[in-house]
């Protein structure tokens, strides 16, 4: 379980958001939504302490991540898989080696076991034949899938997705959405998806948190979101050109 308690972040004099409180339960998928520049990714990076807040804290299974020693923090981080916005693949090594990377450093697996585990992860993202292709030769969608394979290779308890469908065509976006659902179901992980793609939110999330006007403006289930009378949330949803009622996804 992840608990975000009274989190406040500013860069210099610029307040990003304040007093953010969120609870994310095991097996749940939370979408953090909001306009570009509202600080969604910044909030995500606080969950595994890639950034530090000005005030407040984040509890992972009841333990404050910002009060841990560095050694403890590293152990906790290994329980997270993260898909970054641009996939953040290491361009000096092949796609296969990107997925194998954490296994080579954090396990004492034999080469054959590493290969087996990598192929399993690649199979889960439908890229089992990627071989030793350079990451530069991959399309945007393939990069994201390799990113997901790398994120799940250590069998994490939590997966964080930063704009998983940004820059992808609708069909590829749907494939990524399907993968997020598959990962949540097969691996039974807690997932946090940062996005402004409402179609993605409706497909993958159980709950949504709307960051707006430098605070957590709205938080609830997807069903509650549909019925919400929150003006700015509804305006955000309309602006994303998604007409929930017309599409009849509920």
């Amino acid at each position, binding site marked *: 379980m992840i608990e975000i308690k009274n989190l406040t972040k500013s860069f210099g004099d610029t307040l990003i958001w304040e007093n953010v409180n969120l609870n994310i339960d095991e097996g749940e998928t939370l979408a953090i939504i909001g306009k570009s520049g509202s600080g969604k990714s910044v909030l995500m*990076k606080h969950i*595994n302490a*890639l950034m530090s807040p000005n005030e407040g804290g984040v509890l992972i299974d009841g333990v404050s991540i910002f009060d841990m020693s*560095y050694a403890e923090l*590293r*152990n906790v*981080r*290994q329980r*997270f898989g*993260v898909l*970054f*916005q*641009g996939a*953040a*693949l*290491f*361009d000096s090594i092949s796609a296969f080696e990107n997925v194998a*990377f*954490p296994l080579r*450093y*954090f396990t004492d697996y034999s080469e054959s076991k590493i290969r087996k585990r990598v192929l399993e992860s690649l199979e889960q993202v439908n890229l089992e034949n990627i071989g030793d292709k350079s990451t530069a030769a991959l399309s945007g969608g393939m990069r994201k899938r390799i990113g997901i394979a790398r994120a799940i290779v*250590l069998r994490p308890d939590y997966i*964080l997705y930063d704009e998983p469908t940004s820059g992808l065509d609708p069909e590829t976006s749907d494939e990524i959405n399907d993968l997020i659902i598959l990962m949540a179901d097969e691996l039974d992980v807690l997932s946090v998806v940062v996005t402004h793609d409402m179609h993605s939110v409706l497909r993958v999330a159980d709950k949504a948190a709307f960051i707006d006007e430098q605070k957590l403006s709205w938080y609830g289930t997807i069903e509650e979101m549909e019925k919400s009378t929150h003006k700015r949330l509804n305006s955000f949803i309309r602006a994303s050109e998604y007409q929930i009622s017309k599409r009849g996804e509920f």
Partner: protein
Amino acid sequence: MQLFTDLGRYCRLLFEALRSSSEFGTYRKNLTLEMIKTGYDSLPIIILAGFFTGAVMTVQTAYQLLAGFIPRSTIGAIVSQSLLIELAAVISALVLAGRVGARIATELGTMAVSEQIDALESMGFNSVTFLVMPRVLAGLIMFPIIYIAAGTAGIGGGILAGFITGALPPADFLIGARQVFFPWDVTFGLIKAFVFGYVITSISCFKGYYASGGAEGVGNATTQATVLSCIYVLLADLVLAIILL
């Protein structure tokens, strides 16, 4: 104000590198790779630079010492001592500030702006130990070796240029070089190379690691790394000369 902010971040980066140096055993493979990139891959340009420096110095010193009463072996003495005390270390450092410094700043800068450093941290790696330590250590180990290569190539270039132009025969060059050879000169050159190796790699790592702002940010980081490395190499050269000579 920015200077103090940068100084604080630079010290923090180094402190982090030292604090986590016990984990370095995990990342030894990176050190080997960096030693190859920093040292072995730089040898052709360093040998070329050293060779031509020695050759040009010999020809110019011969031109300056036209007076007949000065023994020709003096040219060998001047060229070899200048190379060992000053030029082999400084010329190599200035060349490597461009070659190695720019590479390090660009590599780390690109990793920083494309979130690859965040990716390393999020997997549980200590990015400073993983990225900065091997590069700085490779500099400390390889720069003295590069200095020896540059010095040797310089003396070789001097002997060849003297022979081809007829300024002095190789035997005279070597007599002059032996007359003024003091082991301390080589030790001094090695100390300089060691310090320059640290200056260039640590500044370049610092600039690259904290790069931000996309392609332009990486470009700025690379430029700053190269320029600052050159400035601090020259400054360190003066300080070492004052302290050690």
